[in-house]
């Protein structure tokens, strides 16, 4: 072990790490403090003498009340949740089957298919949103949750497939062979032996996919139009700024409440999420 002097440990470790923590978390603290601060305190010039921006002595839930009474925020939360869950489910189903096929089965074009799924993984949504909007209109899906439930898998499936394919490759083939010698069919061995072993991988892919769909913005912005159909990110952007006026208290209250579900899911499954994250870039 390399031995360090205490001052070196402070300069090279504690101070930088503290700065990283403050820098990373400050915007969230700022969200919280803005959300519970009364309007009278909120809109004070940055040069005002009596300004104490980092705390408030008069916390209020007024902004949260306005959020629920004046906007369709609960609808947005539900929509976001519903769309994220269903599209994650679809993507896991497809990714599981495709990942297994690409990792285990021999068939012509396996390599080419694997490569093309990987390439679609790298296609950003912003490249395709204009023609997709046209297609969604032609399919009569505009302004319905199905527009998103069917398009989110385009960036989730490649990721799930990629991750699960890597996972399946780590499961020894012998397990399957044993099951088949015992009389299981190929399909039976896949469903009853391999899939249960892959549960941690499935969980990682699922958590990661869920946060990605919760985060998605441009498709939701382009495909949805009526206020009560929107997802949280789009609703906050388009319904909470009236004219040129930003209602910062409400906005931050909405941002906070819109972040909590995904932060909760994340905090329960940090390790799985990290596996998903690091697995998402590994070949």
């Amino acid at each position, binding site marked *: 072990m390399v031995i360090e002097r205490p001052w070196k440990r402070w300069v090279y*470790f504690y101070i930088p790490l503290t700065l990283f923590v403050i820098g990373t978390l400050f915007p969230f603290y700022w969200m919280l403090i803005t959300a519970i601060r009364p309007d009278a305190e909120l809109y004070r010039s940055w040069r005002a003498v009596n300004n104490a921006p980092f705390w408030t002595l008069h916390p209020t839930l007024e902004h949260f009340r306005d959020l629920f009474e004046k906007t369709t925020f609960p609808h947005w939360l539900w929509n976001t949740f519903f769309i994220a869950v269903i599209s994650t489910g679809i993507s896991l189903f*497809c990714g599981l089957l495709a990942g297994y*096929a690409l990792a285990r089965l021999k068939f012509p074009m396996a390599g080419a298919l694997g490569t093309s799924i990987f390439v679609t993984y790298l296609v950003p949504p912003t490249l395709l949103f204009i023609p997709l909007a046209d297609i969604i209109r032609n399919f009569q899906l505009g302004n319905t949750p199905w527009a998103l439930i069917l398009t989110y898998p385009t960036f989730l499936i490649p990721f799930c497939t990629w991750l699960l394919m890597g996972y399946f490759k780590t499961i020894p083939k012998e397990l399957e062979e044993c099951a088949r010698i015992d009389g299981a069919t190929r399909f039976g061995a896949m469903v009853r032996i391999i899939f249960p072993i892959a549960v941690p991988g499935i969980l990682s892919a699922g958590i990661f996919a869920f946060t990605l769909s919760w985060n998605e*913005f441009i498709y939701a912005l382009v495909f949805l139009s009526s206020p009560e159909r929107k997802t949280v990110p789009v609703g906050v952007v388009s319904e909470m700024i009236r004219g040129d006026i930003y209602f910062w208290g409400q906005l931050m209250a909405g941002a906070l409440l819109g972040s909590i579900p995904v932060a909760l899911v994340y905090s329960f499954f940090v390790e799985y999420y*990290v596996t998903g994250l690091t697995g998402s870039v*590994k070949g």
Partner: protein
Amino acid sequence: MKKPIAGGTNGAVVVALPHPGTRRARGLTRFLESERLLASLLLAPTVVLLGTFIAYPFVSGVWLSLSDTSVGNVGHFVGLKNFAKAWDDSIFQQAFRNTFFYTFWATIFKLALGMWLALLLNRSFRGKRLVRASMLLPFIIPTVLSTFAWRWMFDPTFSVLNWLLFRTGFIVNKIPFLSDGVYGMWCAIVVNTWRGMPFFAITLLAGLQTINPDLHEAASLDGANGWQRFWHVTWPLLKPVTLVVVVFSIIQTFSDFQLIYVLTGGGPANATHLLATYAYQVGVATGLLGEGAAISLFMLPVLFVVVWVQLRYLRRLEGA
């Protein structure tokens, strides 16, 4: 032997309960025994979904970009006119330059800070799990929502950052964070760095953890200092994972939309547009689908090069 419970796949029932008498089940079982047929069955949902919502829109986008389609009007073929028009458009030129500028600096910062953070997190200290988990928050929280918090922090009248800098004596007059094009671009780079750095840090940390500590010990016994140990031991071993992370980040940053859309909306005076936000403004807000599609297709060559590098690299790994 205790058998694991089957997952919720429909076909599982047929296989799990053998019907020795019926012909159909045998046919199906035999059908599933063929690797080719099973593979095509398993890949069908993926291929159908990706085909309908990626390949088809891609082809359709190329067609749109070659036509003068707008909302409500069926387009006609106009050749490369949309591309030529965009190329001569000064806002497009600005957006094009911005996109490279933004990607370049944001990626550099994310890599440098992410590497630093990864090295810090690779040491053992109390509360490490908590710190690591909270460091990923910017990456988890929907970008639009956290960008609003930044926008509020950059507010022209009520900026807390101006207040802080003023009180600590760094500035006398307020900094025009988002009301000036150059500052606006740098603000966007800062926010992008803030958001994307955790991704670098956590993936690089995963890479760091695979490095054998004995190597460091050997190097320090040989008299290498901290920097030399990083440069000659850590960095070469970390290069592969770094390349992959950088490629991913370049793709995401180059095609970024939401951050700019919320932070500046492309303003002031179209000074901070990226290709994606400008394509949105032309294609969706103005309704000129053809021109919008052409603008977003300008991203393709760069993405193509990046993906090609990535694929070549993967091949090399597989070959090794």
